[in-house]
């Protein structure tokens, strides 16, 4: 999507926290850690789950998935281009007109 736009500029600006993969990664990671701790220390409610420590296992899986997303975003960051083209408006389309243009 974005990797080829980088080359010339020395300091490229990445999406950072705005990268959806970082957002997904942090939320799932946070959930994973909390569930892992709950699985270790809180009531395991084994009668409900049929003997499986569900919090623990879900926590582990979430941490792995979170690491995949954060790693992916780190290996292939999205780069914000300096110039963003405006969307060409179709004159026949009923949309709020830009203030600069006409009535």
């Amino acid at each position, binding site marked *: 999507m974005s990797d080829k736009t980088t080359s010339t500029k020395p300091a490229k600006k990445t999406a950072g926290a705005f990268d*959806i993969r970082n*957002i997904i990664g942090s939320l799932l990671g*946070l959930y994973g850690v909390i569930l892992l701790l709950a699985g270790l220390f809180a009531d395991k409610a084994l009668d409900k*789950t*049929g003997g499986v420590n569900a919090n623990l296992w879900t926590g582990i899986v979430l941490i792995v998935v979170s690491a995949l997303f954060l790693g992916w975003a780190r290996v292939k960051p999205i780069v914000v281009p300096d110039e963003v083209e405006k969307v060409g408006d179709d004159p026949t389309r*009923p949309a709020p007109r*830009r203030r600069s243009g006409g009535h």
Partner: protein
Amino acid sequence: MSHLSLAVPAATTLIDANWLDYLLVVIYFGFVLGIGFMARRSVSDSIDFFLSGRSLPAWVTGLAFISANLGAVEIMGMSANGAEIGLPTVHYFWVGAIPAMLFLGVVMMPFYYGSKVRSVPEFMFRRFGTGAHLVNAISFAVAQLLIAGVNLYLLGSIVHALLGWPLWVALIVAAAIVLSYITLGGLSAAIYNEVLQFFVIVASLLPLTLIGLHRVGGYGGLKDKIAAFAESAPAAAKVAPAAQQLESWPGQALSGFSSSFLSVIGIVFGLGFVLSFGYWTTNFVEVQRAMASKSISAARKTPIIGAFPKMFVPFIVILPGMVSAVLVKEMIDLKGGGTPAGGASGEGVKYNDALLLLMRDVLPNGLLGLAIAGLLAAFMAGMAANISAFNTVFSYDLWQRYIRKDHSDDYYLRIGRLATVAATVIAIFTATIASSFSNVMDYLQTLFGFFNAPLFATFILGMFWKRMTATAGWVGLSSGTISAVVVAFLSEDAFGSASLGVLGLSGQGASFVAASTAFVVDIVVSVLVTMVTEPKPASELKGLVYSETPKEDLRDPEEASQPWYQRTMPLAGIALLMVLVLNFAF
């Protein structure tokens, strides 16, 4: 929980959540509001560029595409269907949604994207003019209000089940939260939240399914239990035989037809071709997400990439419903013909409670909070999507086109905000209606399903037959819709006791026949009216009709140089093959 019971002296709660669960819910809201604040603070072009979806890779828009649909009706409704009739529910996905999504990407998206319309009703306006546009825009706007009400009702019932608040308090609080969520985050943050919501839903429903299956002894155990249940259930409960609940075809438990041959025809043509194609290819809430892509190729791939996760959604929605019906005490009682007390509404257990009750019975605190966060997320996003789509169509397709033309930017933004607030207030009222007459809501949804079938007929005919006239557009649309309503009235129960029972059709089968009738009547009437009216000049049809649009406008020239797994057609082919395999396997 003592502080909560101080605030509202309430009944016992359906679900026993503790501080751990609330922590997980609060974290989710923190992320959602955080995205909203980030989107609001950073108004620079580059960030705007990021959030608007135009730079987002296809996997993100694809997930947002199915996430916008993964709301209350889907999660609660499909698990309820799973509990009641079992596996045939998968037809809503494998015969219904997937082929329609592929068709949207392959055939119809080039016209939507290429004609540069900003909403689906606007395409109608460009192709057929005022009459068809008005019918489409108004019916869509009204349907969105009603569906927002259903989403709000289910959202309120979760809050009720969780905190024990009276339903009306829960409704108002939930509506206020959704309103701030929409106005704070704005449309631009919607796609981010939808993708986030998708992962939270999967993270909560997948463990629920696996633990549920573990409790009943795996899939084999589930089958045995359903078979034993169907054997022993009293005849008055009308439980479908085990063979019908455990095989997706011929799906008589779903269609209600006694002949298995007619059942297959009804499902493939009525549900698959007419109802689902009508919904997925003309529903602006869905199509909007693909329209925001950066190229025609990305727009076409959005629903096709969405099809891959979509085909596995039934496993985490329908299976828990089926497990719930053989594991949860109240559900067993309900399916056996009893009327157990309790439930999310407090007025007796309904099939819609299948998922909530299963959560109560099998999830430990912690995972329970994750599941509650997932459900709240889904209903909020669903309602927000309905209200945003209503807002766009109301402000631009109705207000600007017919009531106040040529006003400033700010004016329409203000109208849009007012429309959002008004829509939220109206949704509270429709939610109240839904809570007291849950069946009325079903009938209304059936009714709005009827608008989609003729809409699809008119679109598809208009896209491929250049002679079709503007008059044929609105006459066909109206007569198709009316014929569907007539069939529903003549059936046994499509409108409950208001139906006359002249035709021996009931259940989903009645909707299939009504929708199919609407489709056929629309086509026939459109062709007849076209014969006696003047067509539009060919010059006005470029980009709107297949034969008048240069072929290179319908394709992305850059696609040929991409590897096969990034091209539209191979991806669609693989998705089609996978869904065929799933149909044979279950």
